[in-house]
């Protein structure tokens, strides 16, 4: 199988999307691009349909929270895999925490469905166009998004463990 190099892939992406590719990086052999969040579905669809690149498998979709990046706190990270070319790469889209809205990738990959629900459950990212965006892991009545950095790990209301013995 012909492996396409990261430079070639980046070149192709920049030729097609130009200014929407905000940042690119290569870490531990994997290319990582940050794109404008408005174009996420377009980029995924273009990569899916492209005859040579053929990124037809979405390995992973997760959310991430950087509390220090002003206006770009919440991010969505896509890992794509081209099975025919044996290439992985990563796409990231950031959005402000006051308005974490992004288009859903379910129109391109059916497997994004639950992963987006999980990202919504943990970070509060609203995916527009998702068929059934509700909490998946936590109880439905939960009113906060637990994996954001400002919330603690432990349940504050528990009575049987004394925090001072745990160094907290």
């Amino acid at each position, binding site marked *: 199988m012909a492996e396409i190099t990261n430079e070639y892939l980046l070149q192709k992406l920049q030729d097609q999307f130009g200014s929407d590719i905000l940042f690119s990086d290569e870490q531990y052999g994997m290319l990582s691009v940050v794109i404008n969040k408005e174009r996420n579905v377009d980029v995924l669809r273009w990569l899916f349909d492209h005859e040579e690149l053929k990124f*037809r498998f979405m390995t992973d979709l997760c959310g991430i929270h950087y509390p220090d990046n002003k206006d770009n706190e919440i991010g969505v990270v896509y890992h794509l895999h081209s099975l025919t070319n044996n290439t992985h790469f990563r796409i990231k889209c950031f959005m402000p925490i006051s308005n974490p809205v992004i288009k859903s990738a379910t129109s391109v990959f059916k497997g994004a469905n639950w992963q987006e629900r999980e990202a919504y459950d943990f970070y509060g990212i609203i995916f527009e166009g998702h068929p059934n965006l509700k909490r998946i892991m936590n109880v439905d009545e939960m009113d906060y998004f637990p994996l954001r950095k400002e919330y603690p790990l432990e349940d504050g209301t528990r009575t049987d463990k004394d925090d001072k013995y745990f160094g907290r």
Partner: protein
Amino acid sequence: MQKEEIIDIDEKVKEYTTLNLGPTHPATHGIFQNVLTMDGEIIVNTEQTLGYIHRAFEKIAEHRPFYQITPLTDRLNYCSSPINNMGWHMTVEKLLGVDLPKRVEYMRVIIMELARISDHVVCNSVIGVDTGALTPFCFIFQWREKIYDIFEQMCGARLTTNIGRIGGLERDWNEDVYRLIKDFLREFPKAFQEFTNLLDRNRIFLDRVTGTGPITAEMALNYGFTGPNLRAAGVDYDVRVMNPYSSYSDFDFKIPVGTTGDTYDRFMVRQGEIWESLKIIKQAFENLPQGKFFAEVPEFYLPPKEDVYNNMEALIWHFKIVMGETDVPKGEVYHSVEGANGELGFYLVSDGGRAPFRLHFRRPCFIYYQAFPEMIKGAVIGDAILTMSSMNVIAGELDG
């Protein structure tokens, strides 16, 4: 005389029944709920609810140092915990840029393949139990205990092993391990052949499993299937072959692939994988190189206790590692291993601190279980149960 009314069946409004399958149900191996909408016996739609065992692994991982995350990874796919452990260690080793000795890699391969056999044995015997065949389950579990004996000799634990350390293994194997592995390689194939003979060409079993819960290759790829479920649909994607890690490229093994993606194909793919795993273990065991069982990374690999008590430098390293004052490089890394259910991936974002900034587990069960409603549309409940057990949904990996 009463006028007979002829009712056209098609004009009658259909009334569907709702059946709640779970969360606690003997046939769903794990706790997740399926609310089935049924037209008589035929399933029309399924609504799934998960999260009944959500333990917030990803949040816990942000508060624990790297070596304390290994016991968490144990509890993802708990039927084959060593694979999860090794995958995590490899991810951190990729981040740190550690080169492992060949001996460590071969030892890890043997451990991972034993875990894979253990998981596939559970899955296949439970498919048998769901069709009513209890004998293969009771029979093969005796042999599965032998795998537990091997793990116990290696690390002290049977199920949630926490085996290995970042940079190698915690102790070398003693003679009991070698003897147990040799005995296992000699005796398990015969026992497994008996298990196969009970189910493989069994008329009742075949009638139950052929044609239940099929899925096409394109649908499977779109849903993100990996592992035996994808290989049963016809796609030969195996992380061990495509992106070899831990010296898998040194070994000669085949990838069993099915055609229709139904329960029979999934069963047979797992059977084939057990035979291939036995081959790999044999090759690794016979060619096990001599050498050290850990890499030279004093910043992350705890020094032996005798050195800590007698040697000043070892004492300082021990202190630094436990207190978390060693330098961890900043960066993001994604590494995946071929777990028993598919591609188990670890996306690690490190900001230089003692604990990861973000750790995300790409859990294969979570991703492929989404396709379950499509696979059972139009089937009866018995087939739905078999499809669920043949997909090997492990609740710990599903919810995480």
